[in-house]
């Protein structure tokens, strides 16, 4: 299999008035064709920064410090703005958090899908409307002809998210980046949206990078999961294995903190301490201050990746197994 997306040793900082924030350090992960890879972590772990970096959408304060991001043969970090613009929306699409704010409030949703098609699909003008309606139908929006005419405020949150997905999928992208696509939606709507993303990945062999804070959700829908903590990817493994045999202490604690249908309130683990301040000098392992397994060897640089199995890697000197 060839990786549709590969991120290698990617580091990124933000220059701010209050110092340099080392938001991502030596981040590596890949997404194969048709694969759904989850990126899981708490707020501030760098999940969204990574998603935006993959899209080539960086804040003006961001500076890439090293590493590579390759998407379908294109080097995303050195490509011209023109080349990136040609890829975005067509081969590379993104679903943003809070669909209601990401959609244009004063333009009919059907028109917004047409805008994407006009930009990228090279269709004759008279076909645009039919294609936009087909895109709405593909995400199972009931009565797509009528919804074409709707403004975002006339649609529920779940419907708006489907419109966002319809826009993202309109040009049959190779890679979909979904940044917390169901946050703020009801569980019943979340299930429908996630089923849709999964089915689209399967049907069109589309790759998906799913950014989420919900380990249960990632566990149900992803093929592989990468766990992030304070700008590091600390563990990456097939979803079922990550949940059943975590190797990084942080992954284990995150799992123990997540309520499941089987947990009890006494059994819920709270992770001691907080994310470190990314502006300060940081130890090689950014979890070390919160980790019960911390030992002097953890402070030796650099922090290596350990391959426990061909598909399960962990960035820890003293993993729970292996």
């Amino acid at each position, binding site marked *: 299999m060839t990786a549709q997306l590969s991120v290698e040793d990617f580091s990124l900082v933000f220059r701010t008035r209050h110092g340099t924030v080392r938001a991502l350090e030596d981040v590596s992960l890949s997404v194969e064709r048709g694969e759904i890879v989850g990126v899981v972590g*708490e707020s501030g772990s760098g999940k969204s920064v990574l998603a935006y970096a993959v899209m080539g959408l960086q804040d003006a304060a961001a500076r890439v410090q090293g590493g590579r991001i390759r998407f379908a043969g294109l080097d995303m970090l050195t490509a011209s703005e023109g080349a990136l613009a040609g890829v975005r929306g067509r081969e590379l699409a993104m679903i943003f958090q809070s669909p209601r704010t990401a959609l244009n409030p004063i333009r009919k949703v059907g028109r917004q899908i047409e805008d994407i098609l006009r930009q990228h699909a090279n269709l004759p003008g008279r076909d645009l409307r039919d294609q936009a309606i087909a895109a709405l139908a593909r995400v199972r929006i009931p009565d797509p002809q009528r919804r074409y005419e709707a403004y975002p405020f006339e649609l529920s949150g779940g419907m708006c998210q489907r419109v966002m997905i319809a826009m993202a999928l309109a040009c049959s992208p190779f890679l979909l980046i979904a940044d917390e696509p169901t946050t703020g939606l009801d*569980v019943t709507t*979340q299930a429908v949206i996630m089923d849709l993303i999964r089915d689209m990945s399967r049907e069109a062999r589309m790759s998906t990078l799913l950014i989420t804070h919900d380990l249960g959700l990632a566990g*149900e829908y992803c093929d592989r999961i990468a766990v992030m903590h304070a700008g590091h990817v600390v563990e990456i493994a097939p979803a079922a294995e990550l949940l059943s045999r975590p190797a990084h202490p942080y992954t284990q604690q995150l799992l123990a903190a997540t309520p499941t249908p089987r947990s009890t309130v006494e059994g819920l683990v709270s992770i001691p301490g907080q994310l470190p301040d990314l502006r300060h000098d940081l130890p090689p392992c950014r979890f070390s201050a919160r980790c019960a397994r911390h030992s002097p060897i953890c402070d030796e640089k650099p922090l290596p990746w350990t391959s426990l199995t061909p598909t399960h890697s962990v960035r820890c000197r003293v993993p729970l197994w292996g």
Partner: protein
Amino acid sequence: MDIADPNPFGALPGTAVGVTLLEAQALSMRYKVAGGGMLHAVDSVDLTIGSGECVGLVGESGCGKSTLVRLLARLADPTSGRILLDGQDIAAVSQARFAGMPQRARIQVVFQDPSESLNPAFRVFQSIADPLRRLLGLKDQTKLIERVRRAAELVGLPPELIERYPHQLSGGQRARVGIARAIAPEPSLLILDEPTSALDVSVQAVILRLLADLQARLGMSYLFVSHDLNVVRLLCSRIVVMYLGRVVEMAPAEALFTGARHPYTQALLGAIPDPAKRGEIRSRLDGSPRSPIDPDPNACRFHGRCPKGTERCATEMPRLTPAGQGHVVACHFA
């Protein structure tokens, strides 16, 4: 204010065990909407909360959970119905007058997002002291400091944070302040409106443990509102499910999770992400709820979205009927 008979209608279905603290009877809230019609936000809800009991309230956005919370907390005046607190009808007085009554201190609310619900210009001390001053009329500075310190201690807030402003606190610390100010007046009922939805899981775990611990130590009743069923089941012994303004099912937590009878509750439970059900094709609840504006009084609110719906559901509104120990359900087919 009239002193009502503590239990004029006899035991309602789904009644709490033990001593009843709060009881809502046929509680309704309707709003006039532009263009005519009435929006039925809460429609004839009967609900009891026992003394020291923790009741969970779940349902989708727009089902009337938040309106019900506002009614029970007496932050809004119901269109009709009664709210009995220890047998006294507190819905008989207007919300504005209730604000000045001693019972005001007995029902307190922990609001959803502590970053939004704390006054940004108040130090932690003022935030916690404010309800003590206003509701209990506590003016003595030494006593006030003592009570604030005690509340902060109960929620595990370090004393050095008491002089800080909300923006100087972490999300978890802000959540603790929100809880401290709600429990400071020693309420009998604490209403928790999505208390952890803005928090990361590691912080959520701490706050849930704190809430369980506080309830055990102080013996308060909780009404715990959440969209996360996995969180609700951790704390609550009884769960109320709402759909479009009406209670559709009420049951002890275990009975609800293992043997939900209402198709809506079943769909809600089936939608919880579960890695154990990877790749399974599950039936999903599609579409959106019907309009809450002038709903057909003779049709089940879930009709049209319900996988089991028949002709009868369109012409006969199902009533809450017993379905086992402390279990009631409003469905013709349950």
